[in-house]
C-alpha cells in the first residue's frame, strides 16, 4: 500500500465537494479516478497534492501523513494545459527538474531521452507559446515527471489529443508504470481508463460509487452484453426472454442487453435453431456503459 485516502471529506460552507472518500493505491499501479465534471476529481487531486486542506479524513503516503512527506515525490499534470509561454521547451524542462532539486547534469540524459521519445527534437529550442496543442501537452507531461517522482497524478491527460499522440502518451504512461511509478489519473475517455487502469474509483457528486478492481466492477453487472449477427427483426429480438434492451447496428448486427447472463443459452437456441450462427458474443459491459449506467442514473 502506498497512498491511502480514509474518509476524506471536503466541505465549503454549505457545499460538500467530496464526501467520505476511501481508496487505496498500491505501489507501481495505475489507478483511475473517474466521474463527470464537478464530481470532485480535481478537489481530490488538490487534497492529495496538499494544495487544499481536507475538512475531515486522512491522506497518507507509505503510512505517513501526506503533508509531512517531501513534495518532490509528487508529479502533477493539471487538467488545464499550461506551461510558461515565453520559455523554450528545453529550458522549461530543466526549470521544472531543478525546482524539484535535481541538477542539470542529472537532468540532461532524461530530457534528451523524453524529447526524442516524444518526437520534440526540432522543438527543443522553440518557445512554448509557438507549439501546437499536442506538443504543449507532451512538454507539460514530461515536465510533470522529469524529476522521476514516486507518485504521478495526471488530470485528464488525453483530452484534446489526436489518436497518434494519445497512443504515444499511453505508451509513456505504461513505461513509467513499468519503471515503478505509481500513477493516479482521471479521464472522460473510458476506453483509455479500461486499457490502462488496474483499479479505479467511480465518483458521483463527491460520493464514491465504487472503488476496487475493474474486473470486480464488471462482475457486479455480470456478462449481460450480447452481440449477435442475425436477420431477426427488432420486435422479435425484443420479445426474447430476459432481454431488457435491443440496439440494432449496421451489418445485421444487434446488441442485446440482458437482465441476467443465464438467459444467454435459451436465446442462443432461439436464434440458431440448431443451425450455424455467424456471431454470438456474450461479454461484460464496457466501462463506458457501466459509467453511463452508474453515474448517469438519475440524470436527465
Amino acid at each position: 500500500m502506498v497512498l491511502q485516502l480514509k474518509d476524506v471529506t471536503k466541505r465549503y460552507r454549505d457545499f460538500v465537494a467530496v464526501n467520505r472518500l476511501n481508496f487505496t493505491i498500491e505501489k507501481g499501479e495505475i489507478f483511475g479516478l473517474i466521474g463527470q465534471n464537478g464530481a470532485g476529481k480535481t478537489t481530490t487531486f488538490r487534497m492529495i497534492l496538499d494544495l487544499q486542506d481536507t475538512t475531515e479524513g486522512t491522506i497518507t503516503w507509505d503510512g505517513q501523513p501526506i503533508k509531512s512527506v517531501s513534495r518532490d515525490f509528487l508529479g502533477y499534470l493539471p487538467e488545464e494545459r499550461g506551461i510558461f509561454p515565453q520559455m523554450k521547451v528545453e529550458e522549461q524542462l530543466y526549470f521544472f527538474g531543478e525546482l524539484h532539486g535535481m541538477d542539470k547534469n542529472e537532468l540532461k540524459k532524461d530530457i534528451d531521452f523524453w524529447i526524442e521519445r516524444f518526437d520534440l527534437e526540432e522543438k527543443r529550442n522553440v518557445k512554448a507559446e509557438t507549439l501546437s496543442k499536442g506538443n504543449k501537452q507532451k512538454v507539460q507531461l514530461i515536465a510533470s515527471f522529469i524529476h522521476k517522482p514516486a507518485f504521478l497524478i495526471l488530470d485528464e491527460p488525453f483530452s484534446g489529443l489526436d489518436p497518434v499522440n494519445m497512443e504515444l502518451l499511453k505508451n509513456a504512461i505504461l513505461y513509467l508504470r513499468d519503471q515503478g511509478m505509481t500513477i493516479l489519473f482521471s479521464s472522460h475517455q473510458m476506453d483509455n481508463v479500461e486499457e490502462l487502469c488496474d483499479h479505479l474509483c467511480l465518483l458521483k457528486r463527491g460520493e464514491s460509487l465504487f472503488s476496487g478492481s475493474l474486473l470486480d466492477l464488471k462482475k457486479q453487472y455480470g456478462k449481460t452484453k450480447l452481440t449477435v449477427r442475425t436477420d431477426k427483426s427488432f420486435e422479435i429480438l425484443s420479445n426474447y426472454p430476459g432481454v431488457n434492451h435491443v440496439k440494432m447496428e449496421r451489418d445485421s448486427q444487434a446488441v442485446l442487453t440482458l437482465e441476467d447472463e443465464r438467459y444467454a443459452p435459451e436465446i442462443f437456441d432461439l436464434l440458431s435453431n440448431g443451425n450455424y450462427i455467424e456471431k454470438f458474443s456474450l461479454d461484460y459491459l464496457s466501462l463506458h456503459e457501466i459509467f453511463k449506467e452508474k453515474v448517469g442514473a438519475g440524470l436527465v
Partner: protein
Amino acid sequence: MSKFKVLIKKLYKQKITSKSFILTTLLYLVVLSGFMFWSEIKDLIFSGDADTIAVVNETEFDIAQVLQDTDDVEYVYVESGDIADKLKDGDYYAAFTLSDADGKLAAKIESYDPLPLNDQQDFQSALSQAGQLYAMSQMELSPEQQQLLLSSEPVITLNSLNEAADDGKSAEEKMAGVWVSYAIGIIIYIFVASYLSMITTDVASEKGSRALEMLLVSVKPEVHFRSKIVGVFLVALTQFVILFGGLLLLLRFSDGGNKWSIVTDLLNSLSISYFLYIIGFLFLTIFMYLIIGALFGSLVSKVEEAGQVMMPAMMLTLVGFYVMLTGMGNPDTMLIKVFSYIPFTSGMVMPMRLGATDMNAIEPIISFVLLVVTVLTLYFLSLSFYKRSVLTYSSGGIIEKMKTVFKVTT
C-alpha cells in the same frame, strides 16, 4: 539550489533579458542623457540662431553694460526708423525702445508676433535689472556706493525659539530638499507603477496559464509569493542601479565634469540621515506595492484581468504623486502633513517634508514606523490570502473575487 533560489533565478533572468526591460532602461538613459547634454544638444540644433534684438536707447545711460549678448540673444543698438519693417521681415526678433520717464527707465518691447512666455519673462528680467541700474545712475552715486547697493542683500539668520526643535534649514537647503524630493517622488512613482504592473501581470500570467498549479506541487504558496516579491524587487534594484550609476557617470563626465558640483552641493546641503530615510522610504514603498501587486495578481483568472485589479493600487500611487506635486509650491500645508503619515503615500510625501521643511525629528520616525508596520501586516495578511486565492478562479470585480475566495476556501 533551493526552490526559492530557482524561482528567483528564473524570474530575474526572464525579466532582465526581456525586450521591455532593456528598452525602458535604455529609454530612461537616453532621457537622462538628454537632460545632461541639453546645452550641447541645444547648441547643435539651434546654433547660429541667436535672436536679434534691436535696442533704441533714447537715454544717456550706457545700456550696453546691462544688455549683454548671450548664446540666445544678440543686441544691436540702432536709431529709430525702419524697425517695424525689420520686425516684419524677421531681421529683428524684438525691439526695445528705452526712454526716461521722470527719472525711471521706460521700456517698450515690440515684436511682430506675440512673444512666448519664456521670452517675455527673460526680457522683463533683463529690463528690470537695467531699470535698477538706471535709477542708481540718476542718483549720481560714487562707484563704492553703487557697489554697496548692488550687494545689498540682507544677512539673515534663522533662530527658532522652540528648544525642542532642531535649528531651521536655510532656504537653499530647503530648495535642494524640494528638488531632491521631487526627483525621489518621480522615481518612486515610476518604479511603483512599472513594477506593480510587472508583478501583478507575472502572477496573473502564471495563474492564467495554469503553470502555477504545476509549480505549487513543488513549492509552497508562501515560497512562491516570497520569490515573486524578492525577484521583482531585485529586477527593480538592478534597473535602479543602472540608472543611478548612469546618472552619476553623466554628471561626472558631461560638461567637462562641471555638473559634478551639483552632486557635491547636494551632498553638502543634505544630511546623511535624510538620504538614509529616502532610501528606506523608497525601498519600503516599492516592497509594499509589490506585496499588493502579487496579491492582486493571485485574484485574477487570466492575465487580461490584471489591469483591472491593479487599478486601485495605481490610484493610490497617483494620489501620493499629486499630493507630492502640491508640495513643490508649499511643502508646509496640512495636506502634505496628513499624507506624509499615510503609509501608501508617505514614501512620496515624507521625503518632501524631510528635505524642505523644519520638522520635529520624531515625525519621520513615526511615519517610517507606520510604513514598516503596514508592510509587515500587509505581508502576513497577503500571504494568508494568497494561499487561498492563488488556485481559485472567479469572475467579477476585485471585491467579488475576494468574496469568492472566502466562499470556496472556508
